[in-house]
């Protein structure tokens, strides 16, 4: 405990270790990497962080991320407007998009229902779903929430929001346990989408 780091280094380590999956050891390694680079690198990194926060916004229709009012998927004419996939996060949307198995529209919740963490249904992009589905004439809704109990509860909640004549299915099998959708490899996720199950 003899040597204490200069304030600015420990501040950087602190900020970096708030990132998911980054422990104090990794944060320290990253901080010293940045210190070793020339000043331009630090400027670029800081600039990229500020820009992304300033430019990126949620699509006003589906909640996905982009730089315009409406995202690329919502404005693409070739997407199938009768089918909608509901995901927990933008990262999950990207993972599913990469499988190439789904050609419809998305709806991004930005979370799952977790009262334990203070997230009730009203805190999510949930209430808009029913209107969107009706407005677009969506006939099939695929709920791609992860296989946890919270993912299941959110899927059941969505089922209740929609009319009975809308088919609601859920992908659940074949995903890694404890397993956030974004970690699933492409083949697994592709299989999970084709093998979706109907929610009663």
């Amino acid at each position, binding site marked *: 405990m003899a040597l204490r780091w200069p304030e600015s280094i420990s501040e950087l380590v602190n900020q970096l270790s708030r990132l998911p999956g980054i422990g104090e050891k990794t944060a320290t390694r990253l901080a010293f990497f940045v210190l070793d680079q020339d000043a331009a690198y630090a400027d670029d990194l800081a600039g990229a962080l500020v820009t992304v926060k300033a430019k990126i916004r949620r699509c006003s229709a589906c909640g996905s991320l982009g730089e315009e009012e409406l995202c690329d998927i919502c404005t693409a004419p070739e997407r199938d407007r009768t089918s909608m996939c509901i995901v927990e996060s933008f990262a999950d949307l990207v993972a599913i998009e990469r499988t190439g198995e789904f050609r419809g529209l998305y709806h991004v919740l930005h979370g799952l229902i977790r009262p334990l963490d203070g997230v009730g249904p009203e805190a999510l992009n949930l209430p808009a779903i029913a209107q969107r589905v009706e407005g677009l004439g969506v006939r099939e809704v695929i709920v791609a929430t992860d296989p946890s109990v919270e993912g299941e*509860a959110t899927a059941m909640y969505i089922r209740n929001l929609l009319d009975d004549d809308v088919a609601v299915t859920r992908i659940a099998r074949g995903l890694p346990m404890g397993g956030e959708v974004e970690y699933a490899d492409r083949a697994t996720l592709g299989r999970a989408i084709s093998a979706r199950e109907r929610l009663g």
Partner: protein
Amino acid sequence: MILESLSVTDFRNLSAVSIAPHPRFNVFVGANGQGKTNLLDAVHVLATLRSLRGQKNRELIRHGEKSAFVEGDVRRGASLRRAKVRVAANGKRVWLNGNPVRELNEWFGGINVVSFAPDDVRVLRSSPGDRRLFLDRAIFALQPAYSLVASEYEQVVKQRNSALRAEVVDYALIDIYDRQLAVRGAEVVERRLRFVREISPRLQESFGAIFDEHLGLEMRYECGFAREPEGADLIEALLRALRSSRVRDEARGFTTVGPHRDDFVVSMAGQPMRAYASQGQHRAFVLAFKIAEIAAIEEGLGAAPILLLDDVSSELDPKRNERLFDFLSGFDGQVFITTTDAEFVRISGESQRWQVSEGGVI
């Protein structure tokens, strides 16, 4: 089955432990607070993905770290598998032979452990919560997949409790939690009932052997939402119970019915042991229970489980301690024993002694 290697990283106070355990007896000696129990807990987590004392993930991770790892080579007959668990605050991840595990059933059935801790001796006089933990631990040992449904059940209880405490209660959401709880809660109770049914004859036998007489030992599961749970439609019964307790649950801010409130009773010659049994009879019960549990695993799996004995000699009287070591000398599996005093451990056979000190093992 045998743990041929074990490495533990940032698990409680164990920062980096790497050992090649002896195939028979491993005696971990060390003063209080050095990490002996933590080491056994690491093995328990590797086997069941659950802490011995039912602790949360966060509590298992060494202070100041973001994740803990437990890894081991497990031999079962001719097959050798490398199992790895990462514990992070938001969940556990598992790998077998380096590959992420997709189906937990693939994982479970790999390692079976039977644990025995000092507090177990008081289980019948302790709280219902301690008894449920005791019972559940035995079921994890026999059917490790039980830990999955039990965790999910507990998780839903927590979500429902929080939802009940919301400013404006969303009853549609409570309905969903009731359905999730009914399905999982029914399975929890079914597995507990099946366990009690299966262990009972062995328990009577091993208790009789310790006392050299038959005292009519009986173990009965008490289900708060179904008076006669055997053969009942438990999903329906739990759903009904949850609905009728909703007003009360909302007033109290937690879920008052379900397997997380159940209990079991052991009686001897028709009298509940909790109130009537002597100190020696309590110790004999626990010892008999553990011996019965081991026998059930040996028969069910065709292989001896790994035994985790935490400081047990300190709680057993000399006579029961002798019984235990008699039993162990006839047991042919791998055993991990912790003790503060190597004098307590009467092992004549092959063994390896390990020194545990400040989170390190040598």
